[in-house]
């Protein structure tokens, strides 16, 4: 993905949004200011990317997540001979219709599921045949944001974000609190306001952001997102899309995003994988996708 494209994408976003502002009722217009702020931030990110390399040294040749001829069936086949990979620092977005097995792919990467055939490699290590305890170790490299956030509802926001730290590190309480605050601020939440709240007291968008903060707490090298923007209003969608881009740019985190929001997919993807009829129908850059003549892809892109 070149910087040119980024900027184009950022500016492209303007027009539909401004149209929204007039077409949509009060709440949207009220939030126009916030939206403008986000837009400038997005532009900033794009500019930063032009001038400086991301903080983390990364080797774009390293394949971090590799899915290699994977097949999986539950009662009936869900995935057949799926292959694609994510290189270091890339954001790969898996798109596809509902129920095609997108979440299932993330569960395979986390080794919550084991493929019937083929293998899944993380950092070059085949994780297919790991024992349960070894799998727990590999998962520490990854942060996952679940479709419904999956916050532990018996714990406060603070305890939720602190959970991976308590589980895997020997950090003292001060350091844990500092880390929790840092991550909550990163996802644009006011730590003092939300820390003592229970997940049931949060809005959908806030839950997702706490979910991202929890996924990030351990500073993972791979982030997995399951529908990070589904069911959210356009403003929150923009904020979360921006967060994912920011993470990739600032920390060089390799990301695998599952989404059926093709618009935000295009905004953040280095590569897009289109899942259809149990197969990967397309895998390549967003530019290649828009340039494709394939009728199914054209149809899927539809109004975009």
């Amino acid at each position, binding site marked *: 993905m070149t910087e040119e494209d980024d900027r184009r994408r950022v500016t492209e976003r303007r027009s539909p949004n401004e149209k929204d502002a007039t077409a949509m009722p009060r709440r949207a217009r009220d939030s126009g200011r916030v939206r403008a702020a986000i837009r400038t931030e997005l532009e900033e990110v794009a500019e930063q990317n032009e001038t400086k390399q991301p903080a983390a040294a990364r080797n774009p040749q390293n394949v971090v997540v590799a899915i290699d001829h994977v097949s999986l069936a539950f009662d009936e086949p869900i995935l057949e001979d799926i292959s694609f990979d994510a290189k270091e620092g890339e954001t790969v977005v898996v798109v596809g219709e509902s129920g095609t097995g997108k979440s299932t792919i993330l569960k395979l990467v986390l080794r919550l599921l084991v493929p019937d055939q083929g293998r899944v490699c993380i950092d070059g290590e085949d994780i297919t045949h790991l024992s349960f305890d070894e799998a*727990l170790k590999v998962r520490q490299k990854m942060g996952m944001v679940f479709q419904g956030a*999956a916050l532990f509802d018996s714990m406060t926001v603070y305890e939720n974000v602190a959970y991976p730290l308590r589980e895997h590190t020997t950090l003292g309480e001060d350091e844990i609190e500092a880390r929790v605050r840092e991550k909550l601020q990163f996802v644009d939440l006011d730590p003092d306001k939300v820390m003592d709240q229970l997940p049931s007291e949060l809005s959908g968008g806030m839950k997702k952001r706490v979910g991202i903060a929890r996924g990030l707490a351990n500073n993972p090298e791979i982030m997995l997102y399951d529908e990070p923007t589904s069911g959210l209003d356009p403003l929150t969608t923009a904020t979360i899309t921006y967060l994912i881009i920011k993470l990739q740019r600032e920390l060089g985190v390799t990301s695998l995003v599952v989404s059926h929001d093709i618009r935000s997919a295009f905004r953040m993807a280095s590569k897009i994988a289109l899942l259809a009829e149990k197969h990967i129908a397309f895998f390549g850059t967003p530019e290649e996708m828009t340039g494709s003549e394939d009728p199914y892809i054209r149809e899927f892109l539809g109004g975009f």
Partner: protein
Amino acid sequence: MILERFNAAAKRGVYSLQEFFVLSGKALGFIFVKPFYTADLFQQMDTIGVGSLGIVLLTGFFTGMVLALQSSVQLQAFGATDYIGSLISASMIRELGPVLAGLMVAGRVGSGIAAQLGSMRVTEQIDALNTLGTDPIKKLVTPRVLAALIMLPVLTVINDFVGILGGNVIAKFYLGKPSALYWRTVFEQMLTGGFTLRYIPNDFIQGLTKPFVFGGIISLVACHFGLKTTGGTEGVGVATTRTVVTASILILVVDYFLTQILLAVFQP
């Protein structure tokens, strides 16, 4: 066609049974393996034990009273109403206390555990635990099983006591027997069942082994059905119902076989 479906159902049943035993093995094994989730254990002991105290007190007391009322009719026919204490003591400690406490806890705690773990499953919180590097069995199942193993015998002793107390009320106000006589027959009964290791009355062994086993049954069945919940919120309801039905049936069936074994091993 029918045969095929029967075959598939049988396979699922065997598979589910195997899953149940694997879960049980792991959950019990983890009792002795670090890390210990002590805070979770105490919280569960509170929910299971303290939380069930009310219904156990209530059911125990009324069962003791109705038992005394019913048997007084029978005993009057033989002119043996002096021995009402023995009858209540034996039936509460050996049978009714453990089984009633078991059934009550299966209804209250078993359904609660199944619903909680079930909704954690369908909202992906179980996956989240796995992802964050925690073994859900160690974190969720083991503390619940251990808490139930500890608390059910405690609840049963309480249940026994208030049951016998209920009998005391009827003996005194309905039959007009003095409390001293009632309690003397209660204690005499405890000693007639013989002793193990010289000092432990066999009635106590029966009365405490049973709730221990029932505690394991209830918590494991509930965790099993809770964790394998599928199909959204509707699935949570299914898991809850299955838990209560299965645990209650198992309690009654296991109670029979356990009684037979215990009577054979600990003879007076």
